[in-house]
């Protein structure tokens, strides 16, 4: 299992559009990818799960990757987060 912590810098937080893009990226991997904020967790492959966390700018989220391709997923998703959120 791998873990990635990140503080959201995007002014609008994880709003609909980046949530949708994140889901697209996450769906490219077989491993489970979870996004956690303040003890609440959502599945990165489910748009309602991500939007439901209402992550705002300045908040820290933890992504956990668990499964066969977790290393590749870690690389791609953490890069996506840094570049877009």
């Amino acid at each position, binding site marked *: 299992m791998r873990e990635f912590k990140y503080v959201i*810098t995007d*002014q*609008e937080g994880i*709003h609909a559009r980046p*949530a*949708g893009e994140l889901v697209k990226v996450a769906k490219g991997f077989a491993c489970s990818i979870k996004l956690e904020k303040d003890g609440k967790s959502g599945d990165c492959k489910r748009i309602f799960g991500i*939007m439901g966390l*209402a992550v705002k700018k*300045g908040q820290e989220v933890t992504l956990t990757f668990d499964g066969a391709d977790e290393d590749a997923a870690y690389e791609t998703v953490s890069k996506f987060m840094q570049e877009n959120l």
Partner: protein
Amino acid sequence: MQIYSGKSVFGGIAIGKISVYRKDEQQVKRTRIEDADSELARYNQARKDGIEQLQQLYDKALKEVGEANAAIFEIHQMMLEDDDYNESVENIIRTQMVNAEYAVATTGDNFSHIFSSMDDDYMRERAADVKDISERLLAILNGSSGNQIQAGEKVIIVADDLAPSETVQLDKDLVLSFVTVHGSLNSHTAILARTMSIPALIGTSLPLDDTVDGKLGIVDGMNGKIYVDPDEAFLEEMLEKQRQEQEKKQLLQTLKGRENITLDGQKIMLYANIGNIKDLATVLQNDAGGIGLFRSEFIYLERDDYPSEEEQFQIYKTVAETMASKRVIIRTLDIGADKQCDYFEMEKEENPALGYRAIRICLTRPEVFKTQLRALFRASAYGKIAIMYPMITSVREVCRIQEIVEEVKKELLQQGIEFGEPEQGIMIETPAAVLISDELAKHVDFFSIGTNDLTQYTLAIDRQNTKLDEFYDPHHPAVLKMIAMVVESAHREGIWAGICGELGADLELTQEFLSMGVDELSVSPGSILPIRKVVLETNVEEYKKSRK
């Protein structure tokens, strides 16, 4: 005449027939089914059809309103593919043995409730998206084509609220304005109105019945009012106002894309002042040649602790990338005086305007300064960034800044972090800097004159004090002489000089600035095109002769 007030989303005046848009909500009955699998197959077919419809809407929206506004339909597709949503529908069908319509309606209600109870305006607004996709599925399941807005002529659309799919299905050429009872500034109707640049009101409490439908209406996006059944005289008045507005708009539009060049061939750069990354759209809309003053303070003011290097880097990088190859002049931290940050824990001062502020804070707290410089140098690798230091009074300060800059570059190099080589300039906003501008010009790449502070320090008048208005002359010859002097000093050393204070936008002075040889004016985005108009109509040589 009836008058209703709402919140204006976009200015302008629209005059035309009102068309009330009524939704026919899908009626859902709960019926028992025998075969869950075939009901589920029916649901999945509807879902497939829905995704296909959304793809068509996406393609249509992409062409009409651009990618940013079309993205919502892609998100709707993802919502229809969301496992949580689908599992909920499936679960209801299987456990309760009920029809797909009922399962969809219930799931839609539940999910939209999750969003509408959130503590966030933007997310609350997303409840409408969930309702929209659920309505779409219901319409497909019921075999109805969904409702279209029918109009044979240009109309003012009045509705309770409009779903994104409804607004996109509208024939844009036939919509004069949107007026909705509900909706927020983040709603799709509001976003669409802004993209289409048509007047629109939200939160307008008007009846959606025959007292309004089919009547003549006037929407005034300036004062947020809709007038129904206007009398003759008022209609005349508004028609005239509309005509004048359109003339002005057209005039400014014809100026877009033109070079800022006088009749006798002198050029000037017209840049925009911005105080937040959100202002970037208006910068581009108004055809700015670059950003002449990016006030970095907002990054520090809107928070409770020092912003990190990474956070700042992302912001500067975004601006640099958005402006592509255009120059972006970022002013380093300028707090103190009237702009205070609690976490800087600064002592109370007797005379803050003459106190601990701007570069003085940066030079005594190099760790804060270095964080910002690192972020700026790193972001410079992504565009044409220039750095500008505020409140300079001596050559010694400039040399000290250069020492710190060298340290920052050395550290970045050692750490193997990529950075660019931004231009570095200073603000000229103290009489001291004006008088030694010939010396300062040898050490920097450009000057930008901050006329607000320069005027205040030169005339010894506090601009906030209204009692002093009669003594205050923004065109005081002392200030104008200083500007001329700074430009001369700059040109003698082969660097450029601009103005980024309020005076730069003063149309009465544009010709004067041109005759002084000012290289750049940085003004609020809305002032760029009016200044361009003056520049295009000016003959500098003739202006100089006329003044003698």
